[in-house]
């Protein structure tokens, strides 16, 4: 398989000039075309082997090593290791080699195992038998032997072995049904069509006689796009050219359904199939935590280098006196004396680097990765996010972004299918101003099954009736709905129309709703047979229309059309689409009445579509045919050409009417949005829908409240005034309150303060995004962003998919660089899902595209609440502690080593033994923090859910800010000073000495340098582990086991390591050192003292901060820990006076109105959530608030 890969590569890159063509020609059945056909360049295609594995047996080691050392951290450690090997360094290469080896091996084993699984899967797939036609006979071969051009037969329920062009099926109409469940997750059946001219070839012999070539584009990963054409040669005539589109293409991985067998010709094989091309991973997103981590790493790298530099310089200053450089008791060898001074200084520098390199631990990367990998299982396991209805749980597509879920500041959500159910129901239609409702309303009750027409307006005239029927026919014909006949009578969409049970399937729920609605109004769409659409009209007569063309829907045009020919021979074009895309193309019809109705419906939150038609005379149709044909067979820019053709065809329409479809809100959508807003997250709705519809939904889901003042930035307004004026006016309105507003609005608590909501539409947005021509004072983006920032909610309607991504990008790169999250369910959301920091797909009705491209997928919008507020919060505090703790414990580890250089003549003497240097990070202190970072819950899940405002405590990367980082680093420095100088004073004066009573007589033994190091190390291991224990708020038995277990492990290991003369070591410096140390009373006392002193400042800071400047989280913790009535000392009032509100410390407080707000928000949440909402407390709070300078307006809300 390697060969094929290499071949492909060579082919790709070497054949640049001559062989590289962007289309390929395939001889169906390997039959040469008749002479005179277009010359073509033969290409070599890969065989049909699927290689999802990365490595082979032979290249595993080199390739895997190469991959691993491409990571900058691994490379750094490799360099350190090599330096240790080459020059004479204080620590043995083992100390850095072993952890590196460990990390590399573990990773390699993991990757190797995964690859082995892939190999197995590949083999199973490559060896499964495939039927193909050779010389008119059916042959079975292994799948991997399939080549481009082979004709393949696939039976029902088999998966396609490669990408095929559908030639014929046993069904007469040349169709087959396919599910792509394993490709994109859509389990609905899709119909594919055989090529017109080949669908007659039913048997092996027939198909062998087929003489055709296919030209198509080179493989590309888009599953839904394909362009090509087929030339069918018959004996005499010129070849027949037919366009091929994705409806003719059967993709590898899809499964054949409801069709006995089909024939197809292989066009893309093996690694060139669309499925294989989709294996390629998406671009990596990196979380904010990772970025901070890298910044901290650079800081530490600088510290490391400066330490090494300082020591090198001091060493040479100190050594300038010759008796220090080379005292009589410690002479150099001749070669050492001869060495060049600069070379010596450089090697010394490197040696110091090596000595201190542990400050950047290898194990941090492994631990972070393990934390992310294992931690993400908690999302998939979460029962609360499992949807019973669909049987779907959340999916984690990448675990790199777990903690980013706790940092979200902006949510961009799609409306349809995300906020709403995407479960459409036909509400009414309006034909020429007359309104039709498919339900008979009886005493205010809807009788759903009653069919009939309730005409609200007066009965139409005769010509009106004609229009009415035309309208219904239009709805019946202008769609891409399929009818699923019989095989699933329990299907979700059963026709309410008594006898016939036909189920409509479509990729768009709107269409289904429309067709069903029309059915209730008397016109039933029966089926599409032999290119004839059959409908059952009100008089139970079957009408047949020949389907001539479908101008399919796309989200840019926002409309679709069909061209049909009635039995009488009239050719009609029916067009259905969004009002904005229909009205400009209408030349006739009761536009004003219909527009009024559409707008009314939209205000009520209904989805509206307009229907128009035009009658075509045959000549016109001819022209259209040619236009379309030309565009369809184009191999290049087919999309563009098609769009142009559609543009030309769909014009001069006659407006018929409009429809209204209701889409219900998802359950708890409003609740979720409210919680997210309380959490300080700004929610933007981006939708392609009409402004009025979207605004109504926004009201329904509480994004806009009754008191929200809506600001409009729409095309209509811009037409009246210039964009410039509108923007400035808006910004003036908004910023008038800015002083008090900017922070407060989002809490959603201010009753009298003005709350703004902005509505902007796609056209206005593109105006804003367009750089200004006159170049004066930059562009409008800044102004626009300023307005957006002051609005509590923003609604963007009429958005094209790309504009959604644009908006996300605009916010993402605005000057605060907020963390964005995009959530959507449809293909039109993919671009924004990919663009945002975190992309979430809703596993919805419109296929799986969004879910596949997202970082996380959830079944329902409401799950977002737990995802962010609970999981995101947890992951963030866990990983930030992990990162800070790792740096802290390595400062503790290495700084004593640095200090020791001042007492050993800068000779790079290590303080700790090799084993301790090696194992400190990989075993003595690794597990507790890993477990902490998996298990920690500083407050319980329920509290987090109940109290969304806690999310603000961690906003803006609060736990990884410089202040916090410096605190941890200083703490590490302090602890290191305590360890080192504690031990120093113990050793300096006389003696920490052993009484030696354990061993023999009452002797008195003096300790050496290794005991010194061991003492420091022991204090350190205990301190850093206990520091973590202090930080742990959630002690399960696992935490106990791991924390105490790892301390025990350290002791046991040290006893063993010193208790035996290890034959594989050439030195025995640690022999009995640890045991002798423990035999000394003062050593025990020193350990207790030094551990206490090291932990003291942190304990003090924790207690004081909690008492004086508690964060919202801490207050909730206090509240949980104590019964409500004892909680009095922790009422938020203390903090109203407090100078600051910070999770870290008082010293750098940022005061302002926000802390107070948050306080009250939390408190309010508590009052409403706690079962007995202590009346005394709220009473006290209300009346005392003004005294504490709490704005009077806040009082109102608390009552």
């Amino acid at each position, binding site marked *: 398989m390697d060969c094929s890969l290499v071949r492909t590569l060579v082919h790709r890159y070497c054949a640049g000039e001559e062989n590289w063509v962007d289309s390929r020609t395939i001889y169906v059945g390997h039959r040469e075309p008749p002479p005179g056909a277009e010359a073509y360049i033969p290409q070599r295609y890969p065989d049909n082997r699927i290689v999802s594995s990365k490595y082979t047996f032979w290249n595993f080691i080199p390739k895997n090593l190469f991959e691993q050392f491409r990571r900058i951290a691994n490379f750094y450690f490799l360099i350190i290791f090599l330096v240790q090997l080459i020059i004479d360094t204080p620590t043995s290469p083992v100390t850095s080699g072993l952890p590196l080896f460990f990390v590399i091996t573990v990773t390699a084993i993991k990757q190797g195992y995964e690859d082995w699984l892939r190999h197995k899967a590949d083999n199973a797939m490559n060896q499964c038998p495939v039927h193909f036609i050779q010389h008119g006979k059916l042959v079975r071969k292994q799948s991997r032997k399939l080549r481009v051009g082979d004709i393949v037969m696939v039976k029902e329920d088999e998966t396609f072995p490669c990408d095929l062009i559908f030639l014929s099926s046993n069904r007469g109409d040349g169709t087959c049904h396919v599910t792509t469940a394993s490709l994109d997750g859509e389990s609905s059946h899709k119909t594919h069509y055989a090529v017109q001219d080949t669908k007659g070839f039913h048997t092996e012999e027939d198909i062998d006689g087929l003489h055709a070539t296919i030209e198509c584009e080179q493989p590309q990963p888009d599953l839904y796009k394909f362009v090509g054409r087929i030339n069918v040669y018959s004996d005499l005539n010129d070849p027949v050219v037919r366009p091929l589109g994705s409806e003719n293409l059967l993709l590898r991985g899809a499964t054949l359904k409801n069709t006995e067998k089909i024939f197809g010709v292989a066009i893309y094989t093996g690694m060139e199939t669309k499925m294989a091309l989709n294996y390629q991973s998406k671009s990596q997103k990196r979380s904010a935590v990772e970025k901070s981590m890298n910044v901290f790493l650079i800081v530490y790298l600088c510290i490391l280098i400066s330490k090494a530099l300082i020591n090198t310089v001091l060493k040479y200053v100190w050594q300038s006196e010759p*008796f220090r450089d080379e005292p009589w*008791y*410690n*002479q*150099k060898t001749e070669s050492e004396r001869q060495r060049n001074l600069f070379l010596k200084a450089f090697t010394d520098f490197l040696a110091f680097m090596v000595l201190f390199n542990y400050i950047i631990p290898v194990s941090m990367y492994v631990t972070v990765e393990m934390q992310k990998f294992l931690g*993400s299982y908690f999302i*998939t*396991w*979460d*029962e609360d996010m*499992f949807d019973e209805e669909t*049987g*779907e*749980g959340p*999916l*984690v597509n990448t675990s790199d972004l777990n903690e980013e879920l706790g940092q979200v500041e902006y949510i961009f959500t799609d409306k349809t299918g995300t906020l709403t159910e995407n479960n459409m129901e036909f509400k009414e239609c309006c034909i020429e101003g007359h309104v039709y409702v498919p339900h008979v309303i009886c005493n205010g009750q809807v009788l759903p099954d009653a069919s009939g027409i309730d005409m609200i307006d007066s009965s139409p005239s005769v010509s009106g009736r004609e229009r009415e029927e035309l309208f219904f026919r239009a709805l019946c014909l202008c769609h891409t709905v399929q009818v699923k006949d019989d095989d699933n009578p329990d299907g979700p969409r059963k026709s309410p129309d008594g006898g016939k049970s036909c189920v409509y399937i479509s990729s768009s729920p709107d269409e289904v709703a429309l067709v069903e609605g029309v059915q209730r109004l008397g016109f039933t769409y029966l089926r599409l047979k032999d290119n004839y659409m059959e409908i059952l009209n009100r008089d139970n007569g079957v009408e047949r229309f020949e389907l001539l063309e479908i101008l399919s829907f796309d989200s840019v045009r926002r409309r679709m059309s069909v061209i049909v020919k009635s039995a009488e021979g009239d050719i009609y074009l029916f067009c259905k689409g969004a009002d904005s895309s229909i009205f400009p193309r209408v030349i006739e019809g009761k536009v004003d009445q219909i527009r009024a109705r559409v707008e009314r419906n939209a205000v009520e939150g209904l989805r509206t579509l307009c229907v128009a038609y035009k009658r075509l005379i045959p000549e016109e149709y001819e022209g259209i045919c040619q236009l379309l044909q030309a565009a369809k067979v184009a191999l290049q820019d087919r999309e563009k050409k098609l769009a142009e053709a559609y543009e030309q065809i769909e014009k001069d329409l006659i407006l018929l009417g409009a429809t209204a479809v209701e889409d219900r809100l998802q359950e708890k959508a409003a609740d979720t949005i409210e919680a997210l807003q309380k959490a300080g997250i700004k929610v933007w709705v981006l939708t392609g829908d009409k402004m009025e519809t979207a605004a109504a939904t926004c009201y329904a889901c509480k994004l806009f409240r009754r008191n929200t003042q809506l600001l409009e930035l729409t095309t209509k307004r811009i037409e009246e005034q210039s964009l410039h004026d509108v923007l400035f006016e808006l910004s003036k309105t908004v910023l008038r309150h800015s002083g008090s507003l900017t922070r407060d609005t989002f809490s959603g608590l201010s009753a009298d303060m003005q709350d703004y909501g902005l509505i902007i539409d796609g056209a206005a947005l593109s105006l804003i995004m367009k750089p200004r021509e006159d170049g004066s004072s930059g562009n409008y983006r800044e102004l626009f962003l300023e307005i957006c920032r002051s609005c509590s909610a923003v609604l963007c309607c009429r958005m094209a998919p790309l504009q959604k991504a644009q908006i996300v990008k605009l916010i993402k790169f605005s000057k605060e660089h907020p963390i964005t999250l995009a959530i959507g369910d449809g293909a039109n959301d993919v671009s924004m899902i990919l663009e945002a920091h975190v992309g979430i797909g809703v596993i919805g009705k419109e296929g799986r595209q969004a879910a596949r491209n997202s970082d996380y997928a959830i079944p329902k919008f409401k799950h977002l609440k737990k995802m962010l507020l609970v999981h995101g919060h947890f992951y963030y505090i866990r990983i930030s502690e992990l990162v800070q703790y790792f740096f802290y414990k390595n400062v503790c580890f290495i700084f004593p080593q640095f200090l020791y250089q001042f007492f*050993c*003549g800068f*000779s*790079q*003497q290590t303080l700790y033994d090799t084993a301790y240097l090696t194992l400190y990070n990989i075993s003595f202190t690794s597990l507790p923090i890993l477990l902490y970072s998996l*298990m920690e*819950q500083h407050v*319980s*899940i329920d509290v987090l859910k109940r109290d969304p405002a806690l999310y603000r405590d961690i906003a803006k990367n609060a736990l990884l800010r410089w202040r916090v980082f410096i605190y941890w680093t200083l703490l590490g420095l302090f602890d290191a000073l305590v360890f080192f100088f504690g031990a120093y004073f113990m*050793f*300096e004066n*006389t*003696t920490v000495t052993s*009484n030696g009573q354990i*061993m023999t007589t009452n002797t*008195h033994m003096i300790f*050496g*340098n290794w005991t010194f190091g061991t003492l420091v190390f022991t204090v350190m291991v205990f301190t850093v582990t206990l520091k973590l224990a202090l930080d742990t708020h959630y*002690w*399960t038995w696992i*935490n106990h086991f791991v924390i105490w277990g790892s301390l025990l492990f350290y002791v046991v290991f040290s006893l063993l390591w010193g208790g035996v*003369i290890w034959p594989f070591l050439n*030195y*025995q410096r640690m*022999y*009995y050192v640890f045991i002798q140390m423990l035999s000394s*009373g*003062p050593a025990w*006392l*020193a350990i207790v*003292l030094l551990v*206490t002193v090291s932990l003291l400042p942190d*304990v003090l800071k924790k*207690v004081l901060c*909690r*008492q004086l400047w508690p964060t919202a989280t801490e207050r909730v913790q206090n509240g949980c*820990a104590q019964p409500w009535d004892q909680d*009095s*000392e922790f009422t938020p*009032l*203390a903090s109203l006076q407090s100078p600051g509100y910070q999770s870290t410390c008082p010293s750098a407080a940022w005061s302002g109105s926000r802390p107070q707000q948050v306080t009250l928000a939390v408190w309010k949440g508590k009052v409403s959530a706690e079962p007995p909402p202590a009346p*005394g407390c709220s009473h*006290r709070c209300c*009346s005392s608030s003004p005294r504490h300078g709490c704005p009077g307006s806040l009082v109102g809300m608390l009552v």
Partner: protein
Amino acid sequence: MTWSATARGAHQPDNTAFTQQRLPAWQPLLSASIALPLFFCAGLAFIGLGLGLYYSSNGIKELEYDYTGDQGTGNCSVCAAAGEGLAPPPSCSCAWYFSLPELFQGPVYLYYELTNFYQNNRRYGVSRDDEQLSGMPSALLHPANECAPYQRSAAGLPIAPCGAIANSLFNDSFSLWHQRQSGGPYVEVPLDRSGIAWWTDYHVKFRNPPLVNGSLALAFRGTAPPPNWRRPVYELSPDPNNTGFINQDFVVWMRTAALPTFRKLYARIRQGNYSAGLPRGAYRVNITYNYPVRAFGGHKLLIFSSISWMGGKNPFLGIAYLVVGSLCILIGFVMLVVYIRYQDQDDDDDDDNEE
């Protein structure tokens, strides 16, 4: 990493306390109400311990004498001057006279102290061969490269014991004489030179090479003594259990010190009349002055010290405990004030409201 929907199946996830992150847990909070008693308790305990340590450390007597021989500091200056510039310096004798007005409570230990001597220098510290010292015959004749430049003698013979540490073995020797009555004769006080090294070092880690024909000297045949040594290693002591690599002085010296100022145990005084300590009277220490320290700006000291239950004299630990203990108490009080103040305020608020 990606999990496809099929990998998990469309089944409901396991509902265990672990997967739902609802394991029963103890959720301690470091709040003031918990920390306060903790601080007071810890403070009191530390102060108590600190007092005990301080007094027991103070009870330890120490007597030290710098015999480096700087100008005008006693009769060792003659030796120091004599040795100036000579390597190795000639052997020289001097003495230190002192008197004890009362009993020096025993057991008494005799240390020597060196200053400015970097036994923890890396190049120095690695310059040894533990295999050789453990008596392996192969290593005896093939010392480790780390020993260079004390690996082989000028004649090319392997040095045993090799390396800088062994070469710089402290070679001053002391004897203690006691004069009971003034004008009376000096009686030699027996110094116990055994049991001064770690038991494990002496018994396990350091081994002589196997005897050849019952002779240690033959076992060391083919090796050279370190250049600074006057005697070969097998003649360090006449006692067969205290010579060669298992000489106690040698073993003590080979345990390199942590800091540039260090003490090493020379002898214990615990025999005969002196088991209870040094009785009052005049004393003389005869010093054989060999070891040059002035070349690197160092000093040599001689120290008599007793020990207590917690080891040698070390005021640091006691003081540190006292300081930390009082700090804890102080912090405790500060926190108490803060705690009460804020509580009062809340109570006041209550009162205000109830009015």
